């Protein structure tokens, strides 16, 4: 099971993580106003970033990327030494080169190494047996070179016999250890490549006397054999292949699989702690006892451990957002609509794997905003808007979730056209009476696309349904607001992490469910009037000063019904503060749970975003408040309640 990870694949993955970082620094540098000054620090920073990408790319045989970086590097190098700063035209060119570079990184990531690592075929004419006469000059020793190392390196090439001529050695009292007095004669046999010999002396050829001649049968043996290759347990040459393209896995510096194993272990630890605490409480452990204090200490440490591991898993959204800035420039250029992107909340931390899986949906959303959201310049001018379309990408933490929003100041959704398209595609009946929200929801239906021409940007017929599917697969939700003439806002609500969650465990209809604690407002005992109302089929009760829909949890999910005597309700709120009260049989307590995705085979599970494994090994569903609220809203209230409670 524990497949060893190819170290080179890890290095490649590390390289792409580094590229993301460097592209971010490059963007920062290019956006720095002081770059306009000659020889400014941002120019140097940009140069270093590009230079580093080039070096890594060349070393890993990403030739195309290395060449793209080289072109950019040369431009920046000239700029570095120029006596005037870049003007607007030069800056635009730099920006275009930066975008090219980002694309080249992306291509290298998907296509794998392409270049042919330099491999010299042996030249038969260069092979032979050789005599090398080598006399180091004083400068050789001063440069840190050492004659003995060179001779040893030489003896690796073939069968060597080495003789030393100490004739020039002075008496000890006049000996200067930094001077070269000795010379060596080395005979190498066994088809040795002359180039390999020359390479051995590459560092010193100008600081020694060196003669290399081909040995023939007639050559006399060296006079005195001093040493053969000493075996001092020298390190072996490693096998090191820089070829062989394997697609890059979604890794950060650590392979995600390894990381997930660590996360799982931390999660299992949390479960084991919760079980231990419960067992001790059941056994009547005194809260003031030393054992209880020790347990508390273990729990605190466990929590710290988990937070630390989780922190490793998160990163600021900034690199993701910067990548989107490039996507926007590209989309705006191709659509011929000038647009400016405002980034808000770039330091918001987000789970790395969520960030990776957001790239595609966000890319699509941005292209959509440019293609379909922003009006052309004439229409913008006519409605008194600035010529440049304004697009805002923001991130924030809210109610234990990450909210990522994309807003444009375009024309808003043309609902009449959406309706006409849906009608033409047979998605709705001609007489369908649709609210604005229901019309907007048509945009997310599979196959729907209002683009009158399939553009190069959002083309390929991929609609917003693909975005919604991708977001849902992350345990996220997508909502949309649009106002004619004012613009459109798409909001993604995403879990903070895919790994661990603080949850309230409840029992309903005989099943155990986990409710995200961040969304659980409170548990309350229902009064007789509320229960009477519920029994009459009324689904709105007043809880916490708000009219709140009340549902039987098990009934809502189609998994049985609450016990007749049940009078406990848990009040949930989603990140938009929509409320729902769920009748449950029993509260089982709070626990940290490990979030396990359902996997691809199941499709969407209504009401639940994921599952967790309980201490006894059984599976419990993690309910999603937003999904439950949608489910409740879709339930026909006028129908008699399927789960009538006896009073």
């Amino acid at each position, binding site marked *: 099971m524990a497949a060893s990870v190819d170290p080179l694949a890890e290095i490649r993955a590390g390289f792409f993580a580094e590229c993301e970082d460097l592209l971010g620094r490059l963007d920062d540098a290019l956006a720095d106003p002081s770059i306009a000054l000659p020889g400014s620090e941002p120019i140097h920073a940009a140069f270093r970033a590009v230079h580093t990408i080039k070096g890594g790319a060349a070393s890993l045989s990403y030739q195309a990327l290395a060449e793209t970086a080289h072109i950019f590097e040369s431009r920046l190098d000239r700029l570095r030494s120029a006596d005037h700063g870049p003007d607007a035209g030069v800056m635009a060119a730099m920006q275009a080169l930066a975008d090219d570079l980002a694309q080249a990184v992306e291509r290298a990531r998907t296509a794998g190494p392409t270049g042919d690592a330099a491999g010299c075929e042996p030249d038969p004419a260069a092979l032979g047996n050789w005599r090398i006469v080598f006399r180091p000059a004083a400068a050789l020793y001063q440069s840190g070179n050492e004659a003995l190392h060179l001779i040893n390196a030489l003896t690796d090439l073939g069968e060597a016999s080495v003789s030393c001529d100490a004739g020039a050695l002075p008496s000890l009292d006049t000996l200067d250890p930094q001077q070269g007095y000795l010379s060596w004669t080395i005979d190498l046999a066994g088809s040795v490549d002359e180039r390999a010999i020359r390479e051995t002396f590459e560092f010193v050829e100008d600081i020694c006397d060196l003669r290399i001649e081909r040995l023939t049968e007639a050559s006399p043996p060296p006079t005195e054999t001093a040493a053969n290759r000493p075996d001092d347990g020298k390190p072996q040459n490693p096998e090191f292949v820089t070829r062989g393209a394997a697609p890059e896995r979604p890794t950060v510096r650590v392979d995600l699989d390894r990381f997930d194993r660590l996360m799982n272990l931390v999660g299992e630890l949390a479960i084991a702690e919760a079980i231990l605490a419960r067992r001790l409480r059941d056994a009547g452990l005194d809260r003031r006892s030393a054992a209880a204090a020790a347990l508390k200490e273990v729990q605190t440490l466990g929590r710290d451990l988990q937070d630390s591991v989780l922190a490793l898993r998160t990163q600021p959204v900034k690199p993701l957002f910067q990548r989107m800035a490039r996507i926007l420039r590209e989309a705006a250029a191709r659509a011929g609509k000038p647009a400016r992107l405002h980034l808000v909340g770039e330091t918001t931390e987000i789970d790395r794997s969520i960030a990776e899986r957001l790239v595609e949906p966000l890319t699509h959303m941005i292209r959509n905003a440019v293609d379909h959201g922003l009006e052309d310049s004439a229409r913008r001018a006519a409605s008194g808007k600035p010529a440049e379309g304004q697009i805002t990408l923001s991130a924030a933490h809210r109610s234990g979730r990450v909210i990522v929003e994309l807003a444009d100041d375009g024309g808003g959704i043309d609902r009449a056209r959406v309706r006409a398209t849906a009608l033409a595609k047979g998605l709705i009946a001609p007489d369908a009476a649709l609210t604005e929200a229901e019309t907007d929801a048509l945009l997310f239906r599979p196959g729907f696309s209002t683009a009158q021409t399939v553009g190069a940007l959002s083309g390929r017929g991929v609609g917003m349904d693909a975005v919604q599917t991708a977001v849902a697969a992350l345990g996220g939700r997508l909502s949309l607001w649009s106002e004619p003439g004012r613009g459109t806002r798409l909001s993604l609500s995403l879990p903070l992490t895919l790994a661990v969650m603080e949850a309230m465990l409840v029992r309903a209809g005989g099943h155990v469910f986990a409710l995200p604690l961040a969304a659980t407002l409170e548990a309350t005992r229902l009064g007789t009037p509320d229960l009477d109302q519920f029994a009459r089929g009324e689904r709105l009760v007043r809880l916490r000063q708000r009219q709140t829909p009340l549902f039987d949890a098990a009934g809502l999910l189609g998994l049985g019904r609450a016990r007749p005597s049940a009078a406990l309700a848990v009040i949930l709120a989603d990140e938009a503060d929509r409320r729902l009260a769920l009748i449950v049989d029993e509260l089982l307590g709070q626990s940290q749970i490990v979030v396990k*995705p359902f996997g691809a085979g199941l*499709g969407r599970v209504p*009401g639940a975003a994921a599952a967790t494994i309980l201490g006894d090994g059984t*599976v419990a569903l993690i309910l999603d408040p937003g999904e439950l609220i949608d489910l409740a809203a879709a339930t026909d209230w006028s129908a008699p309640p399927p789960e009538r409670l006896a009073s």
Partner: protein
Amino acid sequence: MTEALPIQTGSPAESSSDYLGLSAGGEEFILPLSAIREIRSFSHATPLPHRPGWVMGVVNLRGTILPVIDLGRRLGLASTDKGAGTLGARPVIVVVESAGRLLGVAVERVRDITRIADRALEPPPACATGPGGSFLRALAVEADTVLRVLDPARLAPGPEGSAA
């Protein structure tokens, strides 16, 4: 146990494959052994909301969430639970892999492993009559017996599972 069995014979002239015999809904079927990852004793499955009855739910397969279907009901036959009762056997979960996805298939019992020559396989009849007709990959006709080969790829709930 299953790993030790040869999956394919060495002779190219007479290629054949191994199949696992099983009972579901009181009837006999066979599954290609190459698609089977393991066989587990039945454990309680956590039911999923608003799923067709043949989706039994999910179980914990060494830390991952494994969907489990009731093969009898999936094929339009009697439920595996009931069938198990009549046959007096404990149901088991056969874990099959298809397109990289794992699926638990609850059956009443597993039977022996049969080797069937490829030339004995015939495409299922176009009208696919009889129980589970649309889930068949082939018919294996040998001597006077006809065995029904299930297609693991067609058993999974899939993204439209809730609609099925």
